[in-house]
């Protein structure tokens, strides 16, 4: 790399050329040895075999649509032969193109076959691909020239208002969450101080007790119906008892109209006695 300055053919209107000692070289002289690595680096500046072919077409002052395929093919193969085996990862796409070109060249050199397969003309196909690629290459340069966000156009950034002023508008938590959490805390058996004794809580007895309480009071919240000595098992059994009573249509659920379905929790569950008509 020390003596080889290689000019990248990136800019569309720059002079595409290999430079050695600042001297532009239009084609690789047969007698000059160029290290394969340097050649590979030069080739890497192209976007692939189509880009490289376009370069050759331009260098030969040819027209894509009417280009003579033979000289281009020969030049292409001459360059690709310089790639040594250590650059296979780069060479893959180029070798594929080389085989296409050889096929075209062979077809041109051989006497014309007469029949059917002239619907696939490899030369026309190649020219078509070159044209399509040239189109894309041109528009991609135009696209790059258009005013692009964060390069030519900048968004106006501004910080949000002070967090305190945002906080002031956030919906408040309901203070009832606090008391509800304490109630729930109470329902929880005390793991640390006592061993948990699971007293059987007969369902039938709970059904009777809850019916009696509701019949007497008219309506009560679920928590008021609990027997606190029965612990968490009591909560579960009472809940089943309530479900059973609802199923028997002996009690009804009171849903405050301002509650959504998903807001109904044990803490705001209210029940009402349904007198039999």
């Amino acid at each position, binding site marked *: 790399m020390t003596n080889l300055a290689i000019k990248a053919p990136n800019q569309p209107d720059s002079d595409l050329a290999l430079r050695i000692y600042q001297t532009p070289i239009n084609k690789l002289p047969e007698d000059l040895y160029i290290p394969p690595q340097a050649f590979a680096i030069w080739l890497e500046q192209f976007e692939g075999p189509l880009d490289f072919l376009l370069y050759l077409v331009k260098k030969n002052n040819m027209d894509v649509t009417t280009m003579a395929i033979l000289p281009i093919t020969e030049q292409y193969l001459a360059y690709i032969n310089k790639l040594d085996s250590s650059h296979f990862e780069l060479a893959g796409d180029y070798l594929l193109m080389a085989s296409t070109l050889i096929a075209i060249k062979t077809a041109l050199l051989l006497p014309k076959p007469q029949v059917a397969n002239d619907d696939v003309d490899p030369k026309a196909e190649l020219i078509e691909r070159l044209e399509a690629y040239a189109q894309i290459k041109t528009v991609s340069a135009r696209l790059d020239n258009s005013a692009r966000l964060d390069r030519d156009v900048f*968004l106006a950034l501004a910080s949000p208002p002070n967090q305190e002023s945002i906080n002031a508008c956030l919906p408040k938590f309901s203070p009832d969450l606090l008391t509800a959490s304490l109630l729930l805390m109470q329902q929880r058996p005390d793991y640390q101080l006592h061993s948990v004794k699971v007293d059987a809580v007969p369902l039938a007895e709970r059904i009777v007790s809850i019916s009696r309480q509701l019949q007497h009071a008219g309506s009560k919240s679920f928590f008021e119906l609990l027997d606190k000595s029965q612990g968490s098992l009591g909560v579960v059994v009472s809940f089943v008892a309530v479900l059973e009573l609802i199923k028997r249509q002996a009690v009804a659920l009171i849903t405050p109209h301002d509650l959504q379905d998903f807001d109904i929790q044990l803490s705001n569950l209210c029940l009402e006695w349904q007198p039999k008509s």
Partner: protein
Amino acid sequence: MAENTNNIPKTTSAFLQNQQNLQLISRQIEALLHASDAPLTELFLKKQLSLTSLQLEQALSILQERLSLGSLTLNKTASGYRLQIADNFSPLIQRVFPQRQERLSQALLETLSVIAYKQPVTRGDIEQIRGVSLSSQILRQLFDKGWIKEAGFKDTLGRPALLHTTPLFLDAFGLRHLDELPELPDIQALAQFNH
């Protein structure tokens, strides 16, 4: 004097009140545009601020006028309105924040162009047109920027995913519609590839 002011016809006073109201709306729009991380559509603004189309139009023009006193402009992109810094400050910003200038590689630009012009396309289509295998690095970059998305499959062997550009791509390149893309050059014009 006092009598005079009282004699302002009702229509004038209503006009003044309307103007004040539009001023307020224009400030609300400005605040929302700054607070949003994506452009806002007319429909969104009308709905959120309960505006008629006329009110929105008037408030936006008041906003545009006020911004012109400073260094911003109101810009309508493919996905809605956004506030951007006026173009004449771009050189200053480029000088002061040079690290913000991102250069896009030729390979990325070509891939993006194939997707933009030939969409929907598969990876294979892109490779066929560009004549090189597509590095997943490039596709990932394009996905990262939100410029392309996968939608649907091509009904061929392996059912490869189809790639499309997104409204963010249009926004980034200052386009309102895909048909504002620079026209594909004529093959005849390209024939003389030496320019």
